[in-house]
């Protein structure tokens, strides 16, 4: 069952994130993908995350398709103009990838090529609308195409940036443009997330779109402070940092916090799923899924592949 069908039928969704390597090694992608197999409903593939050059997200997604996983390609407006964006959207559909997450993209100032020229021809909302237009069989120029691509369109939301009201308004705009699912930034501040979700419910937006809350397990205090300093739009409560500092085994504490967050999020009304972002720590996914009860019933076969023995499937 594809992700779009799962969104339509209901049920709790579980997606994860995979960062492609900084080299052309396809085995690195395959190695990471083993941890997700038969556990998640979709694997997001980042597109030059934080403006650092990595393996192309569509290429990595193709590798995952061959491995039998369901990739979600992230597409940013930073690197491409409207010609490239449209051709990539059609191209990925031709390769059998139908899920796309439309993002504006981080500014190149944060990456390893700060002297680059950015594009930002479109923004995320316009990209969502463009993808929908392509699905209907039209290019942005108004020209019709013979065989329209099948796309499942997603968007991102940041419930933690100021002001809260504008974030809800922007979510409404993304839905208006045609987003089918929404993945949020990692939740560290649960109270803030709940107030945001309340506003979303008041506007009745949770019924129009599948909202997936982001959860990020962290290995150490350093990772937490790095996130706060380097990644824009992420805020970490002081209590969390002090809790990680006090912990004897920070890795265990990180898993514990992630599981607790997921269990709390499951109680939140209107939420349709969890989006796990194990930053450079993909191997922890099965454990978190198991401890937080996100494991599907039919995933026993998937657990065997975790040992790495039964890698190849027909």
């Amino acid at each position, binding site marked *: 069952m594809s992700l779009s069908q799962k969104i339509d039928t209901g049920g709790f969704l579980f997606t994860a994130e995979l960062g492609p390597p900084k080299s052309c090694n396809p085995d690195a992608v395959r190695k990471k993908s083993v941890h997700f197999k038969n556990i998640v409903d979709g694997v997001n593939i980042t597109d030059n995350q934080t403006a650092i050059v990595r393996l192309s997200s569509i290429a990595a997604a193709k590798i995952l398709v061959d491995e039998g996983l369901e990739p979600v390609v992230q597409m940013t407006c930073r690197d491409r103009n409207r010609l490239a964006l449209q051709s990539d959207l059609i191209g990925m559909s031709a390769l059998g990838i139908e899920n796309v997450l439309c993002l504006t993209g981080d*500014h190149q100032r944060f990456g390893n090529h700060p002297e680059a020229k950015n594009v*930002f*021809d479109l*923004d995320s909302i*316009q990209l969502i609308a463009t993808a929908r237009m392509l699905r209907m069989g039209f290019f942005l120029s108004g020209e019709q195409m013979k065989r329209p691509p099948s796309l499942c369109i997603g968007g991102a939301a940041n419930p933690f940036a*100021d002001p809260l009201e504008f974030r809800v*308004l922007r979510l409404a705009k993304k839905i208006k*443009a045609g987003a089918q699912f929404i993945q949020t930034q990692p939740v560290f501040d649960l109270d803030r997330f709940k107030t945001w979700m309340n506003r979303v419910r008041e*506007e009745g937006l949770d019924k129009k779109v599948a909202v997936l809350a982001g959860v990020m397990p962290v290995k150490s205090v350093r990772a937490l402070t790095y996130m706060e300093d380097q990644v824009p739009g992420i805020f970490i409560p002081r209590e969390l940092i002090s809790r990680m500092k006090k912990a004897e085994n920070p890795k265990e504490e990180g898993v514990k916090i992630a599981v607790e967050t997921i269990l709390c999020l499951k109680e939140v009304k209107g939420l349709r799923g969890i989006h796990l972002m194990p930053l450079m720590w993909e191997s922890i996914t099965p454990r978190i899924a198991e401890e937080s009860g996100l494991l599907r019933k039919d995933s026993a076969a998937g657990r065997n592949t975790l040992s790495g023995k039964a890698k190849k499937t027909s």
Partner: protein
Amino acid sequence: MNEEKYQGKQPFHEEEDTQLLELATRHTKDMSRSEKAVSKTALIFENVVKIPFFRCQRCGECILSHTAFICSQRCPKRLRNGPCGGTGRGGTCEVYPEQKCVWYRIYKRARFLRRLFLLTRIEKIHNWNLEKTSAWMNVLQKRIEAPILFLKRKK
């Protein structure tokens, strides 16, 4: 405050499909020489008003009236549809943390002027052919939409 108007018109996906086709402005005819001359002269007058008051970036496709009379093109990413996800605490810009996010200021002023519902519009994709032309002339020649200066108040 303005919560009823918040949702604006009907949701996008329930509108007619032709609405979606107007997402990008079609390629407009190239200006003739005389038109260019008029546009250039108009731009001089426009700049005198718009640069000191709105810090206009001369995109030629003015949406000042939708964004509470703050030029959205001052954003480092030149976003036309609202802020990116990187706005910091207290509304700082992610690229230049010493500055305020333009969209944060737009939101505050739009709420004050009761123009929030205008922010729910999906702005068209920018036509780069209109860059550095006079937006006023473009409105007169119907290249772009007319600004919404006055609001109809519901009784």
